[in-house]
């Protein structure tokens, strides 16, 4: 970087500290290679000092890194911020209690039953469903790390619900009233739901087609369960896409299978001002030139092509500067995660945060 010592003093202090608190926790670093080493290698691939400074400036002022501790906090938050208000509202409506008598509602049998009749299903490992279950003292049988429930599993969950009600002498049908599908992040919304090749695809579509219609639906309340599709982190773009697609999707579902399908706001929303480049930021524009100059089309595959564009600005052109502690999403600008082999005619790319590609995460 050709920093003089005073500049190096300032910048190294920042880098080392951010690394020790957050970035060194990135789960895809190899042993013995942490953020500072990765940064060094990454910067060296840029041909000039000016380019390195632009890239460095991007990392220090624009990159958003969500650490393990932050993800833990989001898991902690999910129940009180997204689940509890819904259950309280449903309970108090049934019992005709003022919505402000929270303790009364929360300690009521109605609430306890509604809570037990709620399922929490993970859409990926990132949902950390196990941690979610433990933190909220939920019953094992109302939580699953996968949303793809076999008929046997669905049946067992229903039976356990029936037992739970019987043990407490509660006269109520062993049917599920609420289903939460939970994931960690949605960049474009397309992995959750999209219309492609004449039909609806994505995790939500798969859940409805494979799980709800084939087995779980029978164990849902008459009139259908309330389905909530939630992520801890998400973009405004994903929110918009899902709002636009959901209506049409719900119309294709058999009457009585779902009471409603709602997509609550993510706990942390990434607004449009986060995406790269922002016109009012000169370094963004300079960084955008780097994105053009160093692009390697070997980063594209059949899955990325479904985004409708190249991945210079990440999948579907999301243009995010986002890194998650467990994996860098490919909705982020490629220079953060792009790794390609060096060949005689191609320099290849070094990733700052190497990514494990799971094509389902690409949307």
């Amino acid at each position: 970087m050709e920093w003089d010592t005073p500049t190096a003093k300032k910048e190294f202090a920042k880098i080392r500290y951010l690394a020790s608190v957050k970035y060194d926790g990135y789960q895809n670093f190899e042993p013995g290679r942490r953020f500072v080493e990765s940064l060094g290698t990454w910067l060296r691939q840029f041909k000039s000092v000016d380019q390195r400074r632009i890239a460095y400036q991007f990392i220090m002022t624009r990159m958003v890194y969500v650490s393990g501790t932050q993800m833990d906090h989001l898991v902690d938050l999910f129940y009180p911020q997204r689940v509890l208000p819904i259950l309280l509202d449903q309970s108090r409506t049934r019992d005709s209690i003022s919505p402000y008598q929270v303790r009364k509602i929360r300690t009521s049998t109605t609430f306890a039953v509604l809570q037990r009749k709620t399922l929490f299903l993970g859409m990926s490992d990132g949902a950390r469903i196990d941690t979610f279950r433990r933190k909220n003292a939920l019953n094992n049988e109302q939580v699953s790390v996968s949303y793809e429930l076999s008929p046997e599993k669905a049946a067992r969950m229903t039976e356990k619900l029936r037992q739970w009600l019987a043990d407490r002498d509660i006269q109520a049908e062993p049917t599920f009233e609420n289903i939460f599908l939970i994931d960690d992040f949605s960049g474009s919304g397309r992995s959750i739901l999209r219309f492609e090749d004449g039909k609806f695809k994505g995790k939500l579509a798969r859940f409805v087609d494979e799980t709800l219609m084939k087995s779980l639906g029978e164990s849902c309340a008459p009139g259908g369960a309330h389905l909530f599709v939630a992520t801890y982190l998400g973009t405004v773009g994903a929110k918009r896409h899902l709002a636009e697609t959901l209506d049409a999707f719900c119309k294709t579902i058999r009457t009585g299978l779902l009471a409603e399908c709602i997509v609550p706001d993510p706990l942390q929303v990434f607004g449009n001002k986060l995406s790269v480049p922002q016109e009012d930021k000169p370094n963004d524009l300079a960084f955008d030139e780097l994105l053009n100059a160093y692009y390697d089309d070997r980063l594209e595959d059949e899955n990325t092509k479904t985004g409708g564009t190249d991945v210079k600005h990440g999948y579907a052109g999301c243009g995010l500067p986002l890194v998650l502690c467990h994996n860098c999403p490919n909705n982020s600008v490629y220079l953060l995660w792009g790794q390609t082999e060096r060949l005689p005619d191609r320099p290849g790319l070094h990733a700052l945060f190497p990514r494990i590609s799971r094509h389902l995460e690409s949307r």
Partner: protein
Amino acid sequence: MIGNPFLYRAADVRSGSMADDRNFVNLFGVSSLGLIREMSTNLWNIPLLMISAPGGGKSSLMRIFSPGALHYIEETSRIGGVRQSLSEQMEALGAFKGGKPYVVGLWLRMGSEFRTLSQVEGPDRHGLFCALLNSRIVLSMINGTCRLNDLSVGKDLNRLSFSIRPEADSMTAAAWSKWGASDGVALHKKMSDLENSICEMTDDPFWHGDSSALAHTRLWASNLLANLDIKVDGCAFSYRPLVMLDDANELSPDQIRYLLDMLMSRQVTVSFWVSFRKEALGLESVLTQRIHRAMERGRDYQLIDFERARGDFRNRVLEISKLRVQSAAVQIGGLSQAFIDFVSDERDEVFLKRLDEGVARELRSRVLAAAGPELERFRSLISHIENDCSETHDLCRRLRMLEILIHREVGKAQKSFNFLEVSDQTLRRHESDKAIVEAAELFLAKEYRLPYYFGAQRLFALASFNIQQFLKLAGALFEEIMTAIRLDRDADSFLLPERQHAIVNDVGRTFLDEIPFTVTNGSQVSRLLRATGDMCMRETYRQSAPYAPGVTGLALTMHEFEALAKRTRKGDEACLELYQAIESAVAHNILEPEPNYKCKGQEFLVLYLNRLLCVPFQLPLQRGGFREQRLLTLLEWMRSGYRKTKVPERQLGLCE
């Protein structure tokens, strides 16, 4: 991550864990004990008062006598070196006996809850104060005894037993029979319960109770300690109690008076050390160091004013630097561990590099312009200098000094109409005046942007005799040194003058800018300071350097100062503002006072800028130069800042 060892606040870490005591002792400079050593004949017999601005070193000096620290010193004395030296010094002072801790130092920080007790009115108003202090003295004694005997307060109190000697006075005996216990567990419980009750009383708005039932008539714990036999597992524990009240500035003025009365009246029969931040003592007290009117320093009490006890400050900070650098030794590797070895002091190198032919030509032009129509008076001197100097930088310096001389002579000549040639002798006298040499260096530094604030000597001066200030400066410099070492830039690890100057400028500027937010009456202090600094800058850079090497303070006659105090007491708002500003500035070592300074048949209160605050105003660091100001002028400054007074045209300063 290993941090900057100069910035780690060792004494702030609350004594509690052994690791904290170890860290503290490892970073304690033995030479700091020199301040105590000077008083060793009377050390245990009469009260010792310590006063300083924040960061002066009072708490560290007390803490080194705390049980945890003494225990660690004893344990490690066998290592030799510094640790052994500490142990020997403690022995010499009487804090150790036969290589083991003898003093049980009860280090008590006076928190604000004592002050809230002062809200109780009436004759018993000190009763709760005494009660709380009694409980804490006894609890501290129990804790200290355990620590020195490797016992756990939680588990081993039953191994302690206490009994009062017949020599104790009757009031102490009566208090003991009510509040004391022979068993360690019982005594600890009684004192804890008493402390808890008082704390709840002060803290809980809903507390209902009879506060007078908790009050004690006297500080009986002091007499108790002088007559208390302690046994550990049945064996007599021999000790010398030392009560150390830290930050007594937190007490109310009434409580401070009560405490000092008690100490001076010899009611207390054990050793008492009390520390105050200067802000508590009231301006006059600090200035006169007449802490307690009726008492005589030396006979009735000892006093250490940390900012005035300057004698071995250099050695103290050198030692502290060495210890701090050692603590980061892993990173230093094979390089020298003396901090000052990392900071260049090469003044001549700077001149050699920067004062070149171009500068010399410019200076010559200026000399000619300064002489003006009286050039003939100085022509021979100019030639003499030009012929005499073989080195360009030497020529530049001498020409600059000559310019100052010319401005002085021209001004004088015009008044006296004496247009004689200026002699070689005059020149020699002028050039041998250290003040002129330093003024010339300062002027050159400003005019040609040469580094000025660099080198070990200036670094020590910039600390203004305050340890914390030194550590802040050294820390800023060391940060860059550490970076250079980490980057294998050995050349950069030796800090050049330019870098030192830039870093010191940053630290000085930040110090000035933060004043409104960090000290009591900060915005008033800031106004006074900026006006003072502007005045000093203007006066320093006058072309004839009349106050060489420069002005770094102001002076008010003692008569006017007393008038200010009087008008303040009468409620004059403007005077109150100024008085409070001076009081706070002195308390925080922002202005360094020298009261009763005799000059021109009058006595003055001289207020020098903290040396670090000389930096933003580009002032020299030597003392000596100050300018008298009238009280009305200072009041005007508080209102509207410093304003230039009319000066003759030829004396317009360099900052025009």
